[in-house]
């Protein structure tokens, strides 16, 4: 660990409890205060600079320290401490119509700039965003890392969803409480997740559409039930640049194959957060064309990448999941959130790589007409502890079964366990 993060970590641990103040009291106090039109600085969840109601600059920071072990060990050196994220950001509003965010990841060299965008908000139904941000696809991928219920995203969100790219998007919501939302955009490439091993973008001219709705928004119990669907289409140049499969332990179990043509993603998602519970599910299918990629330059059947996950969480300390479990400033200093929130989580998931048809002898070559199917089927068991609004600790135990042991990280071994522990500090 480098000195700076170590110092920040220590300062955070020391200061967080001392900042204890009952959140409800704070709210009441804020409501009594008249609106401040002048220049001022505010520190609630994070430091903020405000000038009247025309400028707001929030300073955000996030640190995630991970401890990872694997069984069997696939990387030399055994257990690994890793500062997964050291991210700094500013975000805010300008002149009521404009929103912005600039964030940079200090621990990453591949794609250090994360969200860098501006958003024009005519009203809640008509907004336009431009810059670099997440392509609207997959609820799991669109959930920020601070708010993930598991340390790692699902395999399908991690490998099949596109992640960030540069482009423009129209978006907004309709009906009471934003019961129907839309996002439609165009992006130059196909997202960070679709980059090859040299971090070169593999897709181009991506069109994306996502719709989500809460059909029972007026129902008490089912009000949070959300259904959604998404589609995107990108051009893929000829080359060994298909999407590839990686395990939770970051090991490749399905290498790239030759593709050429288009890459089309379709997705369906489900989310429901009644009381202390959450139930989420998602299905993603990706189809990549392989025009002229046979040994005799014949067209090959599309490469199909498909998968799903279902997960549930339960805040056993009883807090309402939809309102967020990362609340309150105190810890062991009194108040109803004195012990924070403790949550159990379990996720089942599968991701599969194969060709569109299974005619002919299946093979593992990058130009096989019938690609020998392989899949990663995983169970993750997790415990999350939200100490307060800044500090979160997670433990995940993941069991992964790889269908094709020939392509497994250790050839001949199908079954892998990954144990991950995370301490997260976020402003």
């Amino acid at each position, binding site marked *: 660990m480098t000195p700076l993060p170590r110092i920040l970590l220590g300062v955070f641990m020391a200061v967080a409890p001392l900042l204890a103040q009952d959140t409800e009291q704070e709210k009441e106090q804020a409501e009594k205060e008249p609106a401040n039109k002048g220049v001022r600085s505010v520190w609630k969840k994070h430091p903020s600079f405000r000038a009247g109601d025309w400028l707001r600059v929030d300073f955000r920071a996030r640190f995630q320290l991970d401890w990872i072990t694997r069984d069997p060990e696939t990387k030399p050196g055994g257990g690994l401490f890793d500062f997964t994220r050291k991210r700094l950001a500013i975000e805010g509003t300008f002149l009521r119509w404009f929103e912005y965010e600039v964030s940079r990841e200090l621990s990453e060299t591949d794609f250090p700039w994360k969200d860098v965008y501006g958003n024009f908000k005519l009203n809640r139904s008509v907004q336009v965003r431009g810059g670099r941000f997440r392509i609207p696809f997959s609820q799991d991928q669109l959930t920020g890392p601070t708010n993930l219920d598991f340390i790692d995203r699902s395999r399908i969100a991690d490998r099949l969803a596109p992640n960030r790219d540069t482009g423009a998007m129209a978006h907004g919501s309709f009906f009471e409480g934003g019961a129907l939302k839309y996002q439609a955009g165009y992006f130059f490439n196909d997202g960070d997740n679709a980059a090859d091993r040299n971090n070169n973008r593999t897709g181009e001219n991506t069109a994306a559409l996502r719709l989500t709705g809460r059909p029972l928004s007026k129902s008490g119990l089912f009000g949070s039930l959300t259904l959604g669907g998404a589609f995107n289409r990108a051009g893929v140049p000829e080359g060994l640049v298909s999407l590839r499969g990686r395990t939770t332990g970051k090991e490749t179990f399905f290498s790239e194959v*030759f593709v050429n043509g288009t890459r089309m993603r379709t997705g369906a998602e489900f989310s429901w957060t009644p009381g202390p519970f959450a139930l989420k599910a998602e299905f993603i299918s990706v189809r990549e064309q392989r025009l002229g990629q046979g*040994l*005799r*330059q014949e067209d090959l059947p599309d490469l199909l990448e498909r998968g799903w996950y279902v997960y549930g969480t339960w805040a056993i300390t009883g807090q309402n999941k939809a309102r967020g479990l990362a609340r309150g400033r105190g810890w062991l200093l009194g108040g109803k959130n004195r012990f924070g929130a403790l949550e159990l989580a379990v996720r089942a998931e599968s991701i599969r790589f194969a060709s569109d048809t299974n005619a002919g002898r299946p093979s*593992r070559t990058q*130009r096989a007409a019938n690609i020998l199917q392989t899949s990663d089927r995983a169970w993750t068991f997790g415990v999350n502890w939200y100490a307060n609004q800044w500090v979160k600790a997670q433990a995940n135990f993941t069991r992964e079964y790889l269908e094709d042991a020939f392509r497994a990280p250790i050839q001949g071994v199908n079954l892998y366990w990954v144990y991950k522990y995370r301490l997260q500090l976020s402003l």
Partner: protein
Amino acid sequence: MGRRICGLAVVFAACAFGQTAEDFFSDKVLHDIRITIHPKDWNALVENYLDNTYYPATLEWRDLVIENVGIRSKGRTSRRATKPGLRVDFNRYEEQEFLGLKAVLLDNNVSDFGMMRERLASILWREMGLPAPRETHARLFVNGKYMGVYTLLEDTDKRYLRQWFKEDSGWLYEFVHRDSYRFEYLGSDPEAYVPVLFKPETNESHPEGEVIAEMLRVINQSSDQDFPKAIEEYLDVKAFLTHMAAESYVAEWDGILSDAGVNNLYFYRFSGGKRGMVLFKDKDLSFNGIEYEVLKNAGNNVLMRRLMAVPDWKAFLYDEIRRAAALAGATDGLLDQQVQVIYGQIREAALADELKECSNGVCPVYESNAEFERHVEFLRDFARKRADEVVRQLGLMQ
């Protein structure tokens, strides 16, 4: 369809047409090997011929087709973009074999202008009772284009070990050439030898470099009195001396006694002990001159110098060289006959090979044809005169 069905069957090393690996390496005929590969993959292989990147391909031989094989460029000094040497791994992507083989090699013969030195050498090795890969010649076609005459040879792998030693669980190393290295002791650290000088080809996860280190310590540091017994613990000395006799006979200048240090050998350490044996590798630069000095550089090589200091072994070595001369023969002897046979098999194909090289590199085909004929004539001359020359030199040495 019949071809395809057979192709699928060979995956399990059994084909309806009854072909065997013996047929595949038969030296009675000139074979045709056809490789189908995506043109962009072939271009990538050619452009990156110094890399060991594998590309998927289909291989056809006679009526047999095996799909989903991996091919890559091979060779050291003989690597070429114009006429790549190829390694074909049948089990690169699948758990499959072709006629019981996991891989075959296609030597491009670019350093061997007569195109038959490697094969002639392997014949002599086997005649002397030493292991040597089966070798024959083939015309290679890639995507229908004629790539020229190649030497088709079997891989030195576990199957090869089983064939010669009835076991395969020992430690096979491929020697990695380092300039001026001649079996010196580099200290007790196994990593000084493995994998930098002795690259493990089997038991890669536990290469036991400490045994190699200990062998080299014995070679360099054991007393004259202890040496004969101590080295026998690590090396089949008589097999090694026979190997050196064969290398000397064929005027191998790129082998264990090369000017630049040790080169071109495999070392196999048998299971259940420390003892090992030197094995044949790459003899396409042998037959370097009828008057090439017998045992040239032997005095510079630690192991050879010490072995030859033991009177019995020196006598054995000389006897083995004489035996090599007797087996190779003179006019109408074994090598002379083989030159004639191989020449008859490959002449037409070699003359049509526009990618073969001259001694000064790529040249017009009329020049390379003339050079081919000259070199065959030289090999014929070598086959007829080398035996007398070797015996003459031995006489002078004694």
